[in-house]
């Protein structure tokens, strides 16, 4: 009896590791293969017979920095992303405070309106936004990207921060209030320090979505002046030579590494952030 139970237990362990390990392989194999694309010469990418053991080459590395304004793309990405996250925090923290700490007419509808903007498909608003920015003379500028990334992420950031604010015990505030502190001072001195993990989580998730954003960037950044990493990728073509895959692969990894490091650092909060606070991981 006991041995039988042990046997079935070890069998289920085998199954468990087969499934988890299998998926891990499925996740990592394409990544490793793509990495090998980044470090091979262009002549060994698209061939009659795929080459599995390519010669090592740093061609792509020199190419992305010499043939393309890579630093400019990088600068555009970083500027637009950091700017958009700052705009989001300035707008979202007071909004989240209002939604989580006061009761007033229409509060839940306002909250749901903010949430529902997340559901707008970029394609729905793409044309009007394109004309809006064109008439404002903002096409092809990092400022426009900053504004649009901030708008895309605002609902997410507000709801995540709101969820963290809901967790703060009321007593903490009451104590400060009896000391005569005003609402804004309570927000600044008590609430914000207490929900710092939430603010960081929201910022990281906003950053990822901003890096990933494709459609708006494609429309707004019509020349390399305002290209970000994400859209620059789609333009790594050598005219008649077609796509330059080793450069694409290298840039993909260049963008991946910082994101990976930051996400691993906030791992604990990730599930809560991804569900806008609906799941408390």
């Amino acid at each position, binding site marked *: 009896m006991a041995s039988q139970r042990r046997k079935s237990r070890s069998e289920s362990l085998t199954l468990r590791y087969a499934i*988890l390990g299998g*998926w*891990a392989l*499925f*996740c990592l194999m394409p*990544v490793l*293969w*793509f990495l090998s694309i980044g470090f091979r010469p262009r002549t060994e*990418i*698209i061939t009659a017979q*795929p080459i599995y053991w390519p010669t090592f080459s740093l061609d792509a590395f020199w190419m992305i920095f010499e043939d393309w304004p890579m630093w400019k793309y990088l600068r555009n990405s970083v500027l637009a992303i950091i700017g958009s996250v700052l705009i989001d925090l*300035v*707008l*979202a923290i*007071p*909004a989240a405070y*209002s939604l989580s*700490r*006061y*009761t*007033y007419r229409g509060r839940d509808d*306002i909250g*749901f309106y*903010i949430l*529902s*903007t997340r*559901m707008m*498909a970029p*394609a*729905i*608003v*793409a*044309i*009007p*936004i394109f004309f*809006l920015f064109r008439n404002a003379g903002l096409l092809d500028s990092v400022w426009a990207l900053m504004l649009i990334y901030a708008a895309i992420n*605002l609902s997410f950031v507000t709801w995540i921060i709101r969820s963290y604010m809901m967790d703060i015990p009321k007593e903490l505030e009451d104590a400060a209030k009896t000391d005569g502190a*005003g*609402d804004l001072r309570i927000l600044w001195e008590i609430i914000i320090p207490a929900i710092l993990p939430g603010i960081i989580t929201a910022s990281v998730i906003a950053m990822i979505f901003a890096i990933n954003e*494709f*459609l708006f960037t494609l*429309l707004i950044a019509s020349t390399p002046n305002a290209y970000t990493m*994400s859209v620059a*990728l789609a333009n790594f073509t050598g005219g008649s030579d077609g796509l330059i*895959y080793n450069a694409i*692969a290298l*840039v*993909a990894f260049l*963008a991946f590494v910082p*994101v990976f490091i930051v*996400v*691993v650092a906030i*791992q604990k909060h990730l*599930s809560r952030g*991804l*569900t*806008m606070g*609906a*799941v408390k*991981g």
Partner: protein
Amino acid sequence: MSTTNLSATGAAQSAPVRTYRRRSKRLKKWFPYLLVAPAVIYLMMITLYPGIYAIVQSFYAVKFGPWQPIGFGNYERLWGDYQFWGALWNTFVMGSIALTLQCVIALALAFYAYRDPWVKGWRIIFLVPMLFMPSAVAFIYKLFFLDARVFADLLIRIGLIDGNIAFQSSIWMSRSILILADVWQWTPFLFIIFVAALQGQDEEVEEAARLDGASWWSIFWNISLPMMKPVIAVALILRGIDITTMFTNVFIITKGGPAFGTETISYFIYRTGFKFFDFGYASSASVIMLILTIIIAQLVVKRAFVSAKE
């Protein structure tokens, strides 16, 4: 949470002047609205303004020259446009297959991973695809299946097929690539959420069921899964929104082909608007999509988010 004892300005109590007090009282009433207003106004600029703009534009023929009012002309054209209906159908088919696969796989992985001692390690490994830019992922799949034909070569090597596979001429093969790319990149999104939900469940209930001799599977099916329902709903909605707006992969991998078989509604709007500059027509498609979005938001999303909160 009563607002009456909140003072907007700390000094309000000490002010003896009546007008001052009245003003501060009014300020108190409007204070929460003032706090939330900047965010709402900002969001209206990208939702309300474009929404109205698209509705107005959808009643005009807008091509290079001045706007020509044509009443419901765009909508009539849309009604008879098999490419538009095709795009709706493609979005639905590819979206529902990808979403179902992701949900089932993520649940299975979460079921095996959450009580594994190395759950943190699994989580980090599974996260990797999600942290690549979607445009980069699209290129991985384009190169692997189409440009370098590695997939076909691997199949030939293990002897499954003896020729090349014509991915680009088969609608279902092209769709499969898009679905696979989406499943590969976004299953971790659901996995992370499901594992967190499973880890957060009441351990005592689980322990008691196990002592009664219940198997892991029956605990999962009878206790964990019902508990996770609201979480699953929220996660699927968030993922569903992103899948139905699928654009990047279509733009890079298939360009909507072959025979418009992989054209999603987002790509349809992009193509009519920014490739054919038929802005009025594209706007009418946007308006239809907007109406669908609002209906779904009111019927499904509101309920899911409210129940997840409780």
